[in-house]
């Protein structure tokens, strides 16, 4: 039986490839200096949704909240196989913490209509909170399966999922609709498809029409471009706060109880060093000590 899936994705600064210039004196990240990428575990979430569709049929819609440039990861999702994409973009969303973000995302998921599964990455590499998925599930009033590694079975209104936990795995069964947060060990995200890459290369939000026209002047006007994209189903809709029917007070900075109070710039320095004899005994003693101190084990 076919399932309707929604995948929540985020564009993040590539914090895994930080070079010297990117850290400010205050120890925060200069986002503009980092390339914006598809949050890695969101790719795993998308892959899981695509695999469900391949096995059972249905649709996969991707959703992101972000600046106009976040349309890039929506396109990347289309290149990999998503059927549709929506961008939530509005100045009023800006400055949102996880609570305000999940509020907006939950409204958007509702607006998409009936759904069976919501997938998101376990966490985003720029905040590492792992809160948005669970909070969204709460706001949607549906059960959640965090740390999902593998969909073991999906039949009718029930899903069986293997969860990857620190000390092993756990298999859970859950009724649909539900939300899954997916870990990186779940799968190997597929590469972009050449055919879908070409077919979707013009996919754009109306905010990008100017740039698109500069590259493809043959369309002549934004109206003509809009007509072409609409006909080819390449127009990526942009939903604003008003279109979501959101309460202003729950959005963006206003709706975010979390405030960053202070950022500490931690420089790890070795205070002391010790020579460990490179013998079997020396190593064994070191390992024992590390275990005693709960550093490993």
């Amino acid at each position: 039986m076919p399932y309707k899936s929604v995948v929540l994705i985020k564009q993040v600064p590539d914090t895994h490839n930080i070079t010297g210039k990117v850290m400010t004196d205050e120890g925060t990240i200069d986002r503009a200096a980092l390339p914006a990428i598809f949050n890695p575990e969101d790719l795993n979430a998308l892959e899981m949704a695509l695999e469900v569709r391949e096995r059972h049929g249905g649709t996969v819609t991707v959703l992101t909240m972000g600046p106009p440039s976040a349309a890039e990861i929506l396109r990347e999702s289309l290149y990999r196989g998503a059927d549709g994409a929506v961008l939530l973009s509005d100045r009023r969303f800006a400055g949102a913490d996880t609570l305000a973000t999940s509020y907006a995302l939950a409204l958007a998921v509702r607006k998409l209509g009936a759904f069976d599964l919501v997938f998101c990455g376990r966490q985003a590499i720029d905040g590492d909170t792992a809160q948005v998925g669970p909070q969204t599930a709460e706001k949607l009033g549906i059960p959640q399966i965090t740390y999902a590694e593998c969909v073991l079975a999906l039949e009718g209104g029930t899903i069986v999922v293997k969860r990857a936990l620190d000390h092993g795995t756990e298999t859970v069964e859950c009724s649909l609709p539900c939300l899954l947060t997916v870990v990186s060990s779940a799968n190997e995200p597929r590469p972009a498809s050449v055919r879908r890459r070409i077919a979707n290369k013009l996919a754009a939000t109306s905010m990008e029409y100017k740039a698109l026209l500069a590259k493809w002047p043959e369309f002549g006007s934004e109206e003509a471009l809009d007509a072409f994209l609409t006909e080819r189903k390449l127009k990526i809709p942009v939903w604003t706060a008003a279109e979501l029917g959101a309460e202003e007070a729950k959005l963006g900075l206003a709706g975010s109880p979390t405030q960053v109070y202070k950022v500490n710039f931690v420089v790890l320095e070795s205070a002391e060093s010790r020579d460990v004899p490179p013998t079997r005994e020396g190593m064994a003693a070191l390992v024992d000590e590390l275990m005693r101190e709960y550093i490993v084990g």
Partner: protein
Amino acid sequence: MAENFYLDNPDLRFRMEGAALSAIVDLKEKGYSTAAKYANAPRNYADAQDNWRLILGILGDICANVIAPRAAEADEEGAVFHNGEVDYAAATQAAIEAFKKSEILGAMLPWEYGGLNLPETVYQAMVEMVSRAEGGLMTIFGLQEIASTISEFGDDEMKARVLPRFARGEVFGAMVLTEPDAGSDLGAVQTKASLDEATGKWKLNGVKRFITNGNAHIHLVLARSEEGSKDARGLSMFLVERDKSVKIRRIENKLGIHSSPTCELQYTDTPALLVGKRRFGLMRCAMALMNGARLAVAAQALGISEAAYREALRYAGERLQFGKPVSTLPAVSRMLISMKGEIEAARALIFETSCQVDALKAYEAKQEELAAAGAPLDPAVVARKKRASNLADMLTPMSKYYATEMGNRVCYKGMQIHGGVGYMREFNAERHYRDVRITNIYEGTSQLQVVAALGKMVGRGLDVLIDEWEALDYGSALAPVRAELSELTALFRKCCDELKDKDRELIDYFGTDLVEMGCVVVNSWLLLRDAITLERKRELVRAYTAEHLPRARGLASAILAGEMLSGPSREAILA
């Protein structure tokens, strides 16, 4: 930035960006009317070029990040034969999986069969990158030529059944020509095709040898359909979907391209379908198939060379002897410069050739379209087709000859630059050296390429191109090179004229010398032409001509002296 075999190769990008295909793509896309029907079809030439960049970029990423890191592993594990079947190395399987998932296969096939209708020129750039990543893998990727041949010669029903599966990567192909007693001389093929007159069905019986990827599902088999015939005119081409009647007897244990299984096959009453016209199996089908495949092997040699050059350049910069990097030693830097010059020359030649092949195919299709519509022959189309056909016929074997011989020279030097470690398994130079060695043997040995190019070459077939190039304005900076090249060109023409009316024996005797010279002439003009617009190529063309023109003059001296060893002298020497 993440590694990418397309984006990190300025010369390949320069060639792609400069490929003069606008008229040809217009024809292929029927004045861009295909865009209304197929979501991937380009709306105009700029759109087509943009698509090529995307495709090559995606493949460049896969090559650099999925394939190349496991190339040594694919070589070490190799394809293995067991229980009558072939297992690819794990790394090869992963690569095939990546091709499938990225939906990059069947790129040259027409839109209606799920292809991307790409020109040959783009495809050869793809083959080059795959070969740079893993030389043996190219034989699996490159056998898409099989699908193109079916697309060209098969009937509509066959095409509709087979081609979409190629485009989805569900099936791969094998090109089944060689037999124990029919190698270079394919006219001697004995595998028997018999027609059951009652049912109209064909069956094949016989043994084929050295078949790359004989484990593939779709075989194109050259077989003798005319009982009692002895030569090429008794051969036809057949399509086989491999079933139990096709036995893989063994796979070869060989020097290089270990990931590529080379199979011995036995056909026993194997059901087969005729492809194209009866009796035209070798002359039309196999020739078309081989011409495409020859160019792909040229691109394979080029790709392996690119990899070998990069390894050597890096190593020479890091290896210190006598207190400095060995790359600064004149002997080593000359080797590197020679490698780079030959690689860029081969790339220029291959692109020139593939553009002619694209032109030929496009004008051929146009002519057929006109004929089908009952329209009169358009003399302009006929003339263009004729020109492209003559040039493709000559440039294809020249490309195969030059690129594969140069590939061997480059990989030889690559190992040499590494010194002792280059001889060791741990270093890629050793693998490149082994992998490239097949390229001037299969798809017709270099000697056969010479035979194929020679006839038209002595007939001054290259003049139409060279005349055009000679007429260009190269400016004063390039004047000295240009003058020297014009001189060599005159000498080359003299050699052609000298040989033209001689005995076939004498022509063949000096064949390799003449074709070698022809390649140097063409390559030099191509590089010189590049130097008009590209600063970087100025030094390169100087280095290339400084190295190769004097040698070509030496070849000319030998040809003009015309001193062929007599039969008895040859025997005396070899006794």
